[in-house]
């Protein structure tokens, strides 16, 4: 598929004022993705991805293609390009891309993927632009290119004392061919990458000027608040809006459809001049729902079903050696069953979207989202408009954590705008956000482990019993196969155990489910690494030594990680009486990290005294940002371990707001120390998620060490152990 885009349209997109230098990658034509191209002289831009724009009469613009959720891409992604151009960020205007076809399909933030997948790709973009600017200067001055250097947005030739700004050189550079393999900078010369660079969005977030989705206004817009069925799966029968219409400011009451995963749920929207009026009007609505029998659903009963399902064999996820034989023959065996809850994402900015379906069938969207590119494409199919007729203005996201991978709230606003004939801003209440899902699913886990006569682990089995995110999002989900999304990481751990058989048992569920920061690793790491601790105890071994004894040199990353944890936590140093420490590590698609947690007995409960974290990255962009992400991941992980979780009874979510779905407070936050392993190299791991999974097992292992109590179900009450 080739997408053609007129130069005029492109110039409008970039507000480019003259013949300058535009460097990109050809992106839409999937076959040749990643080839650098010069877009400056094209009358027609064909399937291209411009990232750096040097305007002779203006500034230097670099696109950030990964929505900023708090994870730092607003600084890190443009830095990859700026570094190669020897530009500090104060010389650059950073723009957030909005899923423009010509900027490529990977305009999303998710999977801790931004840096690990773009590190070299975007550096090449900057390096190519630099080479062209240098060539332009050296030709104009008649000096060898090798004698020219670049700094502060200029090319310099010191011997002849000449210099020219990138802007002055842009028009000439624009006529040159793009170097195919531009030379990348020697990392020892980096001014941005790997450094503690201050993030350009921090000042905006310290004086209230950062614009989030919820802050955008356009003239003539209406505000909407939407009543949805409190029982998942219910259908709208009818509604009475006579009282609603009497509320001052209410303009219209219309229905819309929420597309979430494979589900479509109808809702009744109250549109008003201001948001408060819309909310008051909504309270006055009388809506009749047909619950379709789903009001009989009880999560307590569902959990019992999962326990029953655990007795079935399930499908094989991964095998190694002969588990059944080795387990049967082993002298020492143990079994355990672990349970985890559903949880909500609860980003601080509730879901919201401003949409304008215009008369010419062009759609303009202003929202906080993780997935601008996929919005353009999926909405194009759903609403039968061309992708280029959909404009997405991605705002700063007030948190994502996976919730904003799902544009259900964008669908609602788009439909409401079409029906109302006006721009409509739909804002979810916190109650909507807490009660309507999608939720992170629970996983239940059945384990079998065996030790040989020398107390070495000889057989291991992790059976996962759970509903599935895949089944909730894909109508063609195949229940007869294992589900990599729900067994995430369990067969990827580096421990050498000769006989293994991991299994999956699928359970149906009608509630919308979703990826949550670090996805299924957030529940499976807890059970998996806790059970390994049980095996260590059974073997009479120190949990750290037990883990290290299962790691050979092939698994140097995990080994190095644990050794670092051992060192920084002073693992072998005795703790005061009543204290305990626990360790856990987890490797999965997003990366690798580990924790040592120290706890002490306090009254009937436990106090978390300290968390040590090590994250393994290979190469990183901003150590300060990495530390911030790991700190935040740990806070979020503690919430998920010790706070309520989501309960559903009579088909309805019981929790509604932060009073009964609490998140950790500053007073409950332990001291956290983060250590980064980043020795360089091309093998780059993710940052945003890996800090989260090891916390719960390390905490529970520490509690066992302090109290002898093994926690096998999350959440637990930390004040009553």
């Amino acid at each position, binding site marked *: 598929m080739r997408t053609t885009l007129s130069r005029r349209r492109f110039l409008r997109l970039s507000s480019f004022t003259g013949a300058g230098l535009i460097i990109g990658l050809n992106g839409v034509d999937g076959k040749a993705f990643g080839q650098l191209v010069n877009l400056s002289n094209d009358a027609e831009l064909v399937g291209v991805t411009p990232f750096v724009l040097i305007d002779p009469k203006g500034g230097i613009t670099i696109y950030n293609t990964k929505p*900023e*959720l*708090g*994870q730092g891409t607003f600084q890190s992604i443009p830095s990859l390009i700026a570094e190669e151009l020897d530009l500090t960020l104060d010389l650059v205007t950073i723009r957030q891309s909005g899923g423009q076809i010509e900027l490529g399909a990977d305009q999303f933030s998710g999977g801790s993927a931004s840096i690990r997948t773009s590190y070299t790709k975007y550096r090449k973009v900057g390096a190519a632009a630099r080479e062209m600017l240098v060539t332009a200067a050296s030709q104009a001055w008649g000096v060898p290119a090798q004698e020219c250097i670049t700094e502060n947005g200029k090319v310099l030739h010191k011997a002849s004392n000449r210099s020219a700004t990138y802007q002055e050189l842009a028009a000439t550079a624009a006529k040159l061919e793009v170097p195919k393999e531009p030379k990348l900078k020697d990392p020892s010369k980096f001014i941005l990458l790997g450094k503690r660079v201050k993030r350009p*969005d*921090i*000042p*905006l*977030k*310290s*004086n*209230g*000027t*950062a614009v*989030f989705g*919820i*802050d955008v206004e356009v003239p003539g817009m209406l*505000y909407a608040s939407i009543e949805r069925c409190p029982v998942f799966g219910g259908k709208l029968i009818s509604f009475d809006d006579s*009282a*609603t219409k*009497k*509320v*001052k400011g209410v303009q219209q009451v219309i229905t819309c459809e929420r597309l979430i995963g494979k589900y479509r749920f109808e809702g009744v929207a109250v549109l008003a001049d*201001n*948001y*408060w009026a819309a909310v*008051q*009007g909504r*309270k*006055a609505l009388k809506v009749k729902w047909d619950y379709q029998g789903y009001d009989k659903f009880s999560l307590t009963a569902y959990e019992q079903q999962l326990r029953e399902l655990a007795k079935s064999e399930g499908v094989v996820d991964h095998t190694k050696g002969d588990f059944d034989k080795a387990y049967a023959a082993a002298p020492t065996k143990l079994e355990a069953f672990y349970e985890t809850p559903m949880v909500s994402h609860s*980003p*601080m*900015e*509730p879901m919201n979207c401003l949409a304008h379906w215009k008369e010419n069938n062009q759609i303009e969207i202003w929202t906080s989202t993780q997935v601008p590119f996929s919005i353009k494409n999926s909405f194009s199919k759903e609403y039968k408009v061309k992708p280029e007729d959909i404009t997405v203005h991605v705002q*700063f996201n*007030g*948190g*994502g*954590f996976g919730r904003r991978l799902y544009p259900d709230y964008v669908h609602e606003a788009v439909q409401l705008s079409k029906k109302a004939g006006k721009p409509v801003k739909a*804002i979810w*209440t*916190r109650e909507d956000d807490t009660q309507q899902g999608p939720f992170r699913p629970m996983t239940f886990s059945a384990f079998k482990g065996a030790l040989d006569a020398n107390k070495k682990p000889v057989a291991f089995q992790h059976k996962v019993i759970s509903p599935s995110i895949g089944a909730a999002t894909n109508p063609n989900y195949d229940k007869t196969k294992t589900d990599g999304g729900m067994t995430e990481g369990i067969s990827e751990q580096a421990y050498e155990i000769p006989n293994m058989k991991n299994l999956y048992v699928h359970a149906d569920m009608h509630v919308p489910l979703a990826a949550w920061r670090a996805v299924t690793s957030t529940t499976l790491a807890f059970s998996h690494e806790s059970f390994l601790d049980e095996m260590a105890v059974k073997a009479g071994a120190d949990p750290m030594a037990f883990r290290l004894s299962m790691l050979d040199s092939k698994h140097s990353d995990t080994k190095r990680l644990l050794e670092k944890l051992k060192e920084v936590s002073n693992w072998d140093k005795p703790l005061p009486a009543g204290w305990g420490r626990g360790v856990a590590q987890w490797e999965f698609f997003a990366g690798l990290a580990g924790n040592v947690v120290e706890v002490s007995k306090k009254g009937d409960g436990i106090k978390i005294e300290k968390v040590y974290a090590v994250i393994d990255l290979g190469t990183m962009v901003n150590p*300060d*940002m990495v530390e*911030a992400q790991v*700190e*935040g991941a*740990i*806070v*979020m992980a503690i919430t998920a371990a010790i706070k309520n979780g989501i309960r559903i009874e009579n088909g309805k979510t019981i929790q509604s*707001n*932060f*009073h009964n779905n609490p*998140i*950790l*407070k*500053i*007073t409950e*936050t332990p001291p*956290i120390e983060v250590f980064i392993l980043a020795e360089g190299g091309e093998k780059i791991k993710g940052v945003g998620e890996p800090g989260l999974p090891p916390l719960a097992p390390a905490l529970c292992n520490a509690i066992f060490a302090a109290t002898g109590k093994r926690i096998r179900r999350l959440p637990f009450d930390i004040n009553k152990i």
Partner: protein
Amino acid sequence: MLNWCLQLSFMAAITLTVNNKQYKIDVDPQMPLLWAIRDFVGLKGTKFGCGMAQCGACTVLMDGNPVRSCSTPVTAAANKKISTIEGLSDNLEHPVQQAWIEFQVPQCGYCQSGQIMTAVAFLKKNPNPTEEQIDAAMQGNLCRCGTYPRIRKAVKRAAELMKAKPF
């Protein structure tokens, strides 16, 4: 229900003093101050997080005291001096903002206006806080991104900055 709604639809002209500027607005007297500030005064730095005094994202100062604007009816704010994040300083020179930048506190940033306003009011009352006092003062402000370790450091630093150069 019906009567209650009709009752709500009375409108009242109210004068709000926000960041030393006066705004005349005509709104439902029950409207929370939060929505009056955001949608009628037009200052968007104050955020909606929960709407029930649980998260602190909507914190503004009323005569110097932190209040949850989502749970304060707009009428209660008439004749009071309201300060929002926008009125804190012209160029981020408030010591709390300086400390926030120094420690790179915000992640997504959504809770941070509320965090900063709470810290500003607290440090005015207690210029020499202990770590426990900082925690206690900030505990009503939730942060889903988990910036608490940095908030602790930044509030402490802001206290030092204020001592060196009162704002």
